[in-house]
């Protein structure tokens, strides 16, 4: 046995009431490699300092060294859960710089793919949110459904997760013959599982207790922090870029903007943010059904693809409604075939910055739930 050291401690200098806890980068519920420095008073969170950058993959530097088309795979890898939605603002931004108009069929396929991917994304978001609250089984039910959506992507594009499907001016290839039936079947299946999840998770008493009145984000704070997507809508602001400034062909569809109403708690709590995602799945189903009905059967999806993408000098900021919020690309062209500067305005990056504001004063267990309700993807935050 070692001899016991006599410690000479000046007790007045010891700060005894706060504990600093390091959550992450390896922690089961930081959704990747986020690191949170949490200051705890007992179990109550007094301060949170997010440390990001553990997945900084130098997207913007690489984009400056690549052709306009070559950037698309890297755009995929920003928000790897909803790659189709990432590609959409980028290709539209470049098309805008070029002054291109894409064929009708391309627009419809883009919308269908983007909405399918939105469903897949929200399914992961709800699943991992349930996992953060301790419910493991709904996670697997949602992942089972997501798998069916991935099968469609795989058949159409060849990739399961990262597609490189939307090209500047068109698509990589046309969809396969039974695409429409497959998509309609998926929509049916998604609706069926949504019902199960509502019973199993959303309206579960324990789940409501865990998430209602937790992490309340008032609308003015949300706007000032630049929150977007379900974060903003969960706070009761009916702002959706698909309605506010319809891009692509979103003005042709009839759908609603679900907002948080504080059904079981306060407006803008975690439950509201989650239910917004839940209802957006339904709205996406509606859009998909309408798009399938209107989609022209014939048409060359590659007819408008330019041989060489060399936009004139200029700059454009284009934003789309990503499942996580407003994804914008700010592209500066200096007339060469490589972009001079590409800045991605990632929704998760901005949404995460509000975390310290909404998690102070809640318990440590709530912090995990609040983080889950923001629905972050580190690839997009760190880029």
């Amino acid at each position, binding site marked *: 046995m070692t001899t016991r050291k006599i410690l000479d401690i000046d007790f007045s200098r010891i700060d005894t009431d706060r504990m600093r806890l390091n959550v992450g980068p*390896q922690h089961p519920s930081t959704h990747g490699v986020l690191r949170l420095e949490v200051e705890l008073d007992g179990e109550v969170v007094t301060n949170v300092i997010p440390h990001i950058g*553990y997945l900084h*993959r130098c997207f913007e530097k*690489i984009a400056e060294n690549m052709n306009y088309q070559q950037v698309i795979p890297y755009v995929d890898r920003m928000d790897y859960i909803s790659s189709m939605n990432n590609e959409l603002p980028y290709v539209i931004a470049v098309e805008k710089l070029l002054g291109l108009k894409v064929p009708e069929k391309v627009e419809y396929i883009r919308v269908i793919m983007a909405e399918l991917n939105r469903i897949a994304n929200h399914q992961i978001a709800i699943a991992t949110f349930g996992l953060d609250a301790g419910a493991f089984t709904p996670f697997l039910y949602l*992942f*089972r459904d997501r798998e069916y959506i991935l099968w469609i992507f795989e058949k159409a594009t060849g990739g*399961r*997760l*990262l597609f490189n499907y939307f090209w500047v001016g068109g698509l990589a290839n046309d969809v396969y013959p039974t695409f429409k039936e497959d998509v309609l079947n998926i929509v049916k299946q998604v609706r069926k599982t949504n019902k199960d999840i509502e019973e199993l998770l959303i309206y579960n008493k324990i789940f409501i207790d865990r998430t209602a009145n937790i992490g309340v984000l008032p609308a003015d704070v949300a706007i000032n922090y630049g929150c977007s997507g379900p974060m903003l809508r969960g706070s009761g602001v009916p702002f959706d870029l698909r309605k506010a400034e319809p891009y692509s062909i979103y003005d042709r569809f009839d759908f609603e903007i679900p907002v948080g109403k504080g059904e079981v708690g306060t407006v803008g709590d975690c439950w509201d943010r989650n239910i917004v995602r839940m209802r957006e799945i339904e709205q996406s189903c509606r859009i998909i059904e309408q798009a399938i009905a209107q989609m022209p059967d014939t048409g060359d999806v590659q007819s408008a693809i330019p041989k060489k993408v060399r936009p004139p000098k200029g700059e454009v900021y284009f934003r789309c409604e990503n499942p996580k919020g407003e994804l914008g690309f700010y592209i500066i062209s200096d007339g060469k075939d490589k972009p001079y500067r590409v800045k991605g305005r990632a929704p998760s990056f901005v949404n995460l910055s509000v975390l310290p504001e909404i998690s102070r004063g809640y318990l440590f267990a709530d912090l995990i739930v609040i983080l889950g309700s923001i629905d972050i993807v580190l690839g997009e935050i760190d880029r």
Partner: protein
Amino acid sequence: MGLLDRLDNPYETGGIILGTLEDILNWGRSKSDWYLHFGLACCAIEFMSMNASHFDFMRFGIIPRATPRQADFIMITGTVTLKMAERIKVLWEQMAEPKYCISVGSCANSGGPYWQYGYHVLKGVDRIIPVHVYVPGCPPRPEAMEEGMMKLQSLIDRQAIFRKREKLAENENLIKSNKM
């Protein structure tokens, strides 16, 4: 490598009893692998679907553990950045022996699409920790990850515990040349 193989050459391989014991110990380690619950990037999403019902990683007897102390192998699923690299090294050192590492995806193998201009990306996780199995792909399909897992299991099955050092080296050479 059942009992019969050992009967041919009982003394060099440690005898029937030791050989069988070795088989049992290896069997335990290869059939019960707990992985460290740890995701980095895109591949982690495919890894999540692998845990889900369609691919069901648990068929191999694999259970997620949140703490490195109880994990048997670590799956590096995604891009390792320089900021993260030191943490991965710490995690690896925290794991209890015997431990294994599977590097999943191009990024973890070699830097993947970020190899050229990625000033903040570590070009291959094998620069900091030893890797037992590489799974290529960007991201690899879940089937590929399962194949990687089976490769790891067969590697564990052939590990030598009691045999002499020369045998061990020979064995490793064989594994390297992929003949086993």
